């Protein structure tokens, strides 16, 4: 990859999107890419809007925010409505159908999965939705290597939660595999 690749992870506060952004950014560093990760969120610690932008490139990254995304992950209806139109035509859209019920526009590469529901049912906790959906995103976009993502998760989450998050990662990979030909 030599071009600037813009990813926006969006949803509401408390869904762990900024942590997901940090994990993705760290994985990109392990893959020897240049990366910036910025965020925007309201003053509350739960609820309200939240988004994390990750820009991965092999050249110097000047402007650190995503304006024309290659990939958009939307975990809430509000986030999906707000950011969908800034996704480029060839971009990848990943939405959580647990909360996103209406899609104003279908991108070429749209993946719809009830991530929160899957996290709750298969992993026993909705708090793993961020890593589950991030792993899915990584697998369908090939933006960082699986190995780097795993190493990054192990470094970014609290030691007590490494196993749970790696389990979520493997499930995310598995879900994405089913889309591969």
């Amino acid at each position: 990859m030599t071009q600037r690749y813009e990813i926006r992870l969006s949803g509401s506060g408390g869904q762990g999107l900024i942590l997901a952004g940090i994990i993705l950014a760290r994985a990109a560093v392990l893959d020897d890419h240049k990366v910036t990760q910025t965020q925007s969120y309201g003053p509350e610690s739960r609820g309200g809007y939240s988004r994390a932008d990750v820009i991965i490139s092999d050249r110097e990254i000047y402007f650190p925010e995503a304006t024309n995304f290659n990939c958009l992950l939307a975990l809430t209806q509000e986030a999906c409505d707000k950011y969908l139109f800034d996704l480029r035509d060839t971009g990848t859209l990943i939405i959580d159908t647990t909360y996103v019920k209406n899609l104003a526009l279908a991108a070429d590469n749209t993946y719809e999965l009830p991530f929160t529901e899957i996290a709750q049912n298969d992993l026993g906790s909705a708090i793993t939705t961020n890593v589950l959906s991030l792993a899915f995103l990584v697998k369908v976009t090939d933006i960082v290597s699986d190995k780097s993502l795993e190493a990054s998760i192990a470094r970014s989450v609290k030691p007590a939660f490494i196993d749970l998050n790696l389990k979520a990662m493997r499930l995310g990979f598995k879900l994405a595999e089913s889309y591969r030909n």
Partner: protein
Amino acid sequence: MLKTTASKSTKAKTPKTPTPAGPKPSAQRTKSKLNELQRDLERKTIIMQGNEAVAYGALDAGVNFFAGYPITPSTEVAEILSAELPKRGGTFIQMEDEIASICAIIGASLTGAKSLTATSGPGFSLMQEGIGFAKITETPCVVVDVQRMGPSTGMPTSPAQGDIMQAKWGSHGDSPAIVLYPDSVKESYELTIRAVNLAEKYRTCVILLLDEVLGHMRESVRLPDMATVRVINRIKPTVPPHWYKHYDENQKYLSPLASFGDGYRFHVSGLTHDVHGFPTSKSGEAAEMMERLRKKISYNIRDLVQIESYEMDDAKIAIFAAGITARAAKEAIVMARYEGIKVGLLRPLTIWPFPDDAVRKMLRAVDTVIVPELNQGQLIHEIRRLTKDKSDSDVLTIQRVNGQLITPNDILHKIKEVI
């Protein structure tokens, strides 16, 4: 339940199993061994936040005292230093407010500590009186202001560049300021070290301005090797105690500084004072003190000023921007140059004292200047002052105060308006 609304285009597949790190051909092995050695000498590329870079820059510059009142978006500086300073024999105090914080770092500095505090707009306003006290008593200290939307509590998690003028004029009584303004995580580290160094060298309160986005932003960064980091310590007096003047001066208006407890007697007062620090109302002594405060900055302007020029060689349009806005400008310049438009950027790393000579010289060669900033017009006045040869319609501004950044497209738009 899995479903997809659209078919997926073919994409390159990653190998199912990652390539094992097995033995490599010998030629490559030597090379990678070299790389490995080199990596051990240098620091590795890591992901780091702007505020983190400030905290580690402070530690590497030798800061051993922090007193502060944590505030978004600067909190991480206090958070990291609260963990790291005690490990290294330093002191961290969480104060009751920002007025106490600035007073504590001034007091600590007078005992010989290298001290720093971090805050944001609302706290920066409260610190102004103390900043003036540090300047008149010529006590080294550093205030980091991670700017957020204002006025008042404003929007704590949104960026603005509203404190540019406050950093210079915020404290009453007309005193010169040294204010640094980084635009990347790496530069946040470097300029924090520089801020501490300049505070020690010039015996004053140095201010480091950061943008909210930069404070919170993470970026891949390779920090310079510690062996190449230059750390400046204050000059200590070498004269016998009874000869010591607290505000003595050499040709460059820099004076040695004794610490409390060193055996030197001196008086510290916010009142206009003589060379020993005792209050005076003699006009001659007052003028001498004020002159020293001014001259130690203006006589050393070449040491203080740092400016980056980007793609300016053949530029017909210049953008003047600082901090995070300069990064949007660089992106816009890449886009404009792709279309053959000759545009460049001037970026001050030292925002005060203002780089008058460099800016005047470099802007003389261009037809148009664009000044994008996240406020209602602060830098633009400095640029207008330095471009008297240009008409008002040739010095343009982009201003935004809604909590959003000025984007590369906004700047590109403006560039296209003038050609």
